[in-house]
């Protein structure tokens, strides 16, 4: 076996993650629910843990059904919590509470289990190197289905994410669409966390869309920037993990952070220069 054979699935996995995460990341950042993925991943992990305690294998279909059931529960909670704006409870508070409580309950459930307790930790760290081709194929099919769903109803999802007041004026059932959004999102996160771990999934989701927001205000360019950046960073991260002999997932995460930093610095320098030029022009006009 060569290094290429080992790294290729990891690289393809990050490309597959790129496709859907950069897009849904835009929604997540627009909605201001940054930690919703951590929260849904944690509640999905709780589902798997409960399935395990009931005597099902960790990586079995039944365990997946359990984790998806719990994710739907979480989606329901999040689609209702938006409506509580009048009480001025921010949605991030609800997201945080769901995270903390489901993490704690997972620990309680696991304290009754007898084996693979490390699995809890493992689920959140993930090891993108141990992804297999059949697993990648299943993931690609699932993401394609979610992507298609979001493409068909893109008008609804986009307007609700970007301008909920306008959506309300049009009399749409926001609660229903929010629920559908979080269910499909939870479906995706459950799968991607199993492959890549929470840290990496968070980066694939948030960093490209934040970077794109720095550079453009329009949706199309933002998507293009997000996808390009995500793919380039994956390639650079995988290469660096090979060259420097470092754990692959964590290296990609650090590369994401570094890239964002560089883009932000360049943007600032560029803006200053332009502002400087503008001032000179104004000066010369006065003269």
């Amino acid at each position, binding site marked *: 076996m060569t*290094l290429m054979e*080992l790294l290729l699935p990891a690289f393809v996995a990050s490309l597959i993650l790129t496709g859907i995460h950069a897009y849904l990341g835009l929604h997540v950042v627009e909605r201001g629910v940054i930690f919703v993925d951590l929260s849904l991943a944690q509640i999905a992990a709780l589902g798997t843990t409960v399935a395990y305690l009931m005597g099902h294998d960790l990586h079995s279909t039944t365990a997946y059904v359990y984790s998806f059931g719990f994710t739907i529960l979480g989606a329901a909670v999040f689609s209702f919590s938006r409506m509580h704006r009048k009480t001025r409870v921010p949605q991030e508070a609800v997201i945080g509470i769901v995270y903390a409580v489901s993490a704690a309950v997972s620990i309680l459930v696991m304290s009754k289990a007898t*084996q*693979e307790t*490390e*699995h809890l930790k493992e689920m959140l760290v993930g090891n993108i*190197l141990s992804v297999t081709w059949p697993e990648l194929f299943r993931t690609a099919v699932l993401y394609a289905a979610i992507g298609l769903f979001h493409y068909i109803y893109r008008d609804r999802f986009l307007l609700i994410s970007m301008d909920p007041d306008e959506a309300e004026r049009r009399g749409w059932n926001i609660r229903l669409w929010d629920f559908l959004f979080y269910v499909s999102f939870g479906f995706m996160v459950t799968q991607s966390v199993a492959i890549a771990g929470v840290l990496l999934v968070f980066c694939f989701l948030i960093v490209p869309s934040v970077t794109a927001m720095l550079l453009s205000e329009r949706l199309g360019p933002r998507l293009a920037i997000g996808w390009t950046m995500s793919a380039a960073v994956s390639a650079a991260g995988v290469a660096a993990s090979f060259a420097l002999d470092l*754990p692959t997932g964590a290296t990609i995460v650090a590369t994401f952070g570094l890239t964002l930093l560089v883009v932000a610095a360049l943007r600032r320098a560029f803006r200053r220069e332009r502002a400087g030029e503008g001032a000179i022009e104004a000066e010369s006009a006065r003269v």
Partner: protein
Amino acid sequence: MKKLCIALALLTLSGIVPRAEAKVRVISTLQDFASIAQAVGGDKIEVDSLAKGYQDPHFVDAKPSLILKLSKADLLLVAGLELEIGYLPPMLDQSRNAKIHPGNPGYLDLSQGCEVLGRPTGTVTRAMGDVHPFGNPHYWTDPENGRRIARAIAARLAQLDAANAAAYQSGLASFEAKLTDKEKQWASKMTPYAGAKVVTFHDSWPNFAKAFKLEVMGHIEPKPGIPPSPTHTLEIINVIQQNKIKAILVEPYFDQKAPKFIAEKTGAHVVVLYPSVGGTPQITDYLTLFDADTDALVGALGGN
């Protein structure tokens, strides 16, 4: 009313006056030591353990019941070598039981007198990762160390409870006889596989490998909790393929995703090997622990 008063008085008295048949209360961190202590002490002692055999012995969640057990104990058995450093010291403080603090006869570090492997030579630095600076603390996975542990426990029990010294001596003799018998069984079971090469998940089986004549060729996750780099993963895969290694040994409390992935790539088998008594309900004592583990190994090394 009178009867009740007398009953109460008796109850109070029984608490103050030590009963002749009071048992020595022994608490151990690992179920393995508890099992050996039970074999040695028989009905003269009462044994309990903090960590269950199915838990990772490096991490034990402090529960109120554990502190209560510590506060009542006469003798504490620990593995030492910093295995329990993550949870025991604070619990020991909270127990407010000076008898079982280090330095007192109620504290017995069983690593002393056992054969400990992997003692780093030279200075230990942070750069070496998660090394145990005093040596590998998984020494009880060698049955000969089990014998040494039994002797140490018998001697300490006799010191704490001199009246029953003879009972402890005979308990020890019968445990040693059974162990010797079993060791012959295990050795003959493992003879066909002497020198078999294996890979382990973490570096926790050097004593076991030495006792059962296995050769450990590498670890899947050299630093616990840190995913291995691609180069290391590839190295392990190549080592397994080149040496036609048939078994990857994993403790039951670790996630099997990475070992299964490597097994799939190489055709090796993932063998869940139990490091401690109580790892599964079938492993009821120190001797059945090695019955189960040698069975699992024979299954993997013997199959094609």
